[in-house]
């Protein structure tokens, strides 16, 4: 008996979408609400504070991390585009580049965190650092999650390319959508936390 999951490659007649595509967008919608709630919390804390610290964070490290994430978004979309052009070798190169850039982002974040904790400035130190660690910590976990998924598609998950290239390409597209969202969140986190 054929037990294949339907609409992993072909589009559903009602939505015109493969199930995975609609699924990842609904997941991203829930992620918007999660980060939206935290941004809303930030506004409440900031507007209610008598004073708000400036210059506590290293703007240059934050800017370098922004450049890293933007570059990783480009390499991610190139990884997907090369699959569409049936060039698995280039796809793999760009996906590995995205994975490495994500790792560099987390290493930078580690140095930032280590600097704060070294001075005894944990989330308990001030309202600003509490929301800073909450927002960047959650974002960092998303980076880590993306890296796990990418590692899977660089490693064992890549076998699917030979068996079902269209399904593999769709999976990389969904990974890319998630990764661009993580980049998008950082695009707002950087000015809100580091500059304003």
């Amino acid at each position, binding site marked *: 008996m054929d037990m294949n999951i339907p609409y992993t490659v072909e589009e559903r007649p009602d*939505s015109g979408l493969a199930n995975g*595509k*609609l699924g990842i*967008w609904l997941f991203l919608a829930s992620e918007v*609400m999660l980060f939206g709630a935290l941004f809303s919390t930030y*506004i409440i804390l900031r507007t209610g504070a008598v004073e708000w610290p400036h210059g506590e964070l290293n703007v240059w490290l934050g800017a370098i991390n922004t450049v890293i994430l933007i570059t990783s978004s480009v390499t991610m*979309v190139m990884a997907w585009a090369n699959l569409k052009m049936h060039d698995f070798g280039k796809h793999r190169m760009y996906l590995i580049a995205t994975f490495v850039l994500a790792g560099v982002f987390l290493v930078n974040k580690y140095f930032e965190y280590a600097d704060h904790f070294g001075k005894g400035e944990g989330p308990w130190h001030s309202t600003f650092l509490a929301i800073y660690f909450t927002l960047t910590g959650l974002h960092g976990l998303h980076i880590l999650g993306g890296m796990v998924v990418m590692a899977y598609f660089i490693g064992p998950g890549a076998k699917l390319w030979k068996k079902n290239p269209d399904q593999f390409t769709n999976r990389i597209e969904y990974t890319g959508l998630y990764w661009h969202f993580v980049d998008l969140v950082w695009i*707002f986190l950087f000015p809100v936390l580091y500059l304003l």
Partner: protein
Amino acid sequence: MHSDPASVKASLGKYWMIGGALLVFTVITVAVNLVHLSSVALAITIALIIACMKGSMVASVFMHLSNEKKWIYGALILTVIGFIVLMTVPLFTTMDTIGTHSPAIGIPESHAAGH
């Protein structure tokens, strides 16, 4: 979304160009911060406008939202409505007057307090 090999190949240049534009906007954001504008409100406005521009470029080009199916737009419209509600929550905190003293209009505060 058009994703046949030929149209994808034609889009490669656009992806690199958008990536470059995003990096340029990042440099502008940091430069505005270094200039130390006299008005904090102006600095916040500029930084958030640039962030919105960068975000819309990522969403429309990298996430292909400029050319998607209506089901996805429908889901995102609901999300935007929810997001707007979340962003207005801080306003509700300023509307909460429970426990605050507000004397009746036209009555001097000393009379309202019973002195």
